């Protein structure tokens, strides 16, 4: 059962990202399902414009596309937690919530860190998702570098890339202070 649920969570991530991005268009567009539903139910009078090609749709797509990079490391960490530790917590009188906060979360700290590293680097370097979901109107470092490359401004693009790389590496160094990644495998 757990394997089936894990597969259900991961199969969408094996299909095309671009398709998964554009599949939000019929839902979020001006005449999309969400607006139709909201107008139809009388909650709003005019369709919302800010659903698609906005910060909201970019963030929604990022979450939609990248949760797997957090799910897999967490799954890996959690499946290795000794069941007897959880039983011990229950025997000691801990509630479900207390067990989660004091036992489970500390034990999957490494999973959380590895997942965070993946998500941070993917989002920091992204220009595709921002381009498609932001209607090519929203800027990110990656998007700027891509535009500069298209205009053959290679030195400028390279300088930007190095600054981006430095920023990402600093974040990762800060994160890896908490864990030894090699021990996790």
């Amino acid at each position, binding site marked *: 059962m757990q394997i089936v649920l894990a597969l259900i969570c991961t*199969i969408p991530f094996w*299909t095309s990202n671009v*398709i998964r991005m*554009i599949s939000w268009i*019929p839902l979020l567009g001006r005449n999309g399902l969400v607006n*139709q539903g909201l107008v139809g139910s009388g909650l709003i009078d005019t369709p919302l414009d800010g659903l698609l090609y906005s910060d909201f749709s970019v963030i929604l797509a990022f979450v939609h596309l990248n949760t797997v990079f957090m799910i897999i490391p967490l799954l890996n960490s959690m499946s290795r937690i000794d069941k007897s530790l959880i039983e011990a917590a229950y025997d000691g009188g801990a509630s479900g919530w207390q067990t989660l906060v004091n036992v489970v979360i500390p034990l999957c700290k490494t999973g959380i860190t590895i997942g965070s590293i993946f998500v941070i680097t993917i989002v920091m370097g992204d220009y595709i998702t921002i381009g498609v979901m932001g209607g090519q109107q929203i800027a990110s470092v990656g998007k700027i570098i*891509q535009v500069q490359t298209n205009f053959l401004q290679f030195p400028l693009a390279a300088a930007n890339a190095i600054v981006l*790389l430095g920023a990402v590496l600093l974040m990762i160094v800060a994160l890896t202070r908490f864990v030894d990644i090699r021990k996790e*495998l």
Partner: protein
Amino acid sequence: MDSRPASFYWLAAFFTLFVLFLYGPTITILILSFQGPGGGLTFPMQGVSLHWFEQLFRGIGVVDIGSAFWNSLILGGIVTVITVVASVMAGLAFRRRFYGSGALFYVAIASLIIPSIVVSLGIALEFRIFDDSIKAIGDAYEIEWIWQNYTTMMGIYSSGLGAHLTWTFPFGLLIMFAVFNRFNPAYEEAARDLGATPWQTFAHVILPIIAPSIFGVALFGFTLSWDEIARSSQAMGADSTLPITLRSLTTTVTTPAIYALGTLTTMISLIVIVSLLTALVVVRRRQARRGSDAGKGVM
């Protein structure tokens, strides 16, 4: 069986919503790709037809989807083979501590944590330098062949292949690391004690044991490559792969034909996933059946 606490139902409801969030949009375009000829990009459906699939096969716009499709498929195959072979060999090599193994490991993994645009730009610039140097050599030694025939080294099977490997190989290596960390060396020792050569040990002992993980690496390699766009977009040269074509179509095509294309590529992904998973199950079964003959007497 204990009765479930209330939190179980809340969490199950949350999980259901999450699954709906994951699958909902894809199912939407799956339905909309069968939109009638008069229909638009959103609901309601104006009848049901295969009109947009026909449009797709007749070709939309100027881009050649067919060649992009084959490019992606062949490149994905090559990437998968290289990733599997290289990560198995690297996994075996890293079992021994050799000088600089730690540094080498981090260098190999580093390309995972480098933002994709940096990798892409770096590869593009690297190949420009190659091109410039070769042209400079051509000028310096007056080699006519270079003047007449040489344009660029950049292409789908050089820089494009490299860009894909920076993404698939580290994942393959990580999987093999995890596999060999749990691998019991007693099996190899037993094989050696029985007089097996190193190659026989590998082919008859190690390989069958790690076979399921190799399918995993192959599945990862192919699907990552099939869908790769961020790293390869600057590094493909004149050709393009399916995802890159798809992305450029998102800005130009405003008919449900793009949904039909989405349905088609999703189906191909699913066929690959299902067939590899089936192969995995078959290998596991076979292992379980023929795994051990301990206690069954001598043949």
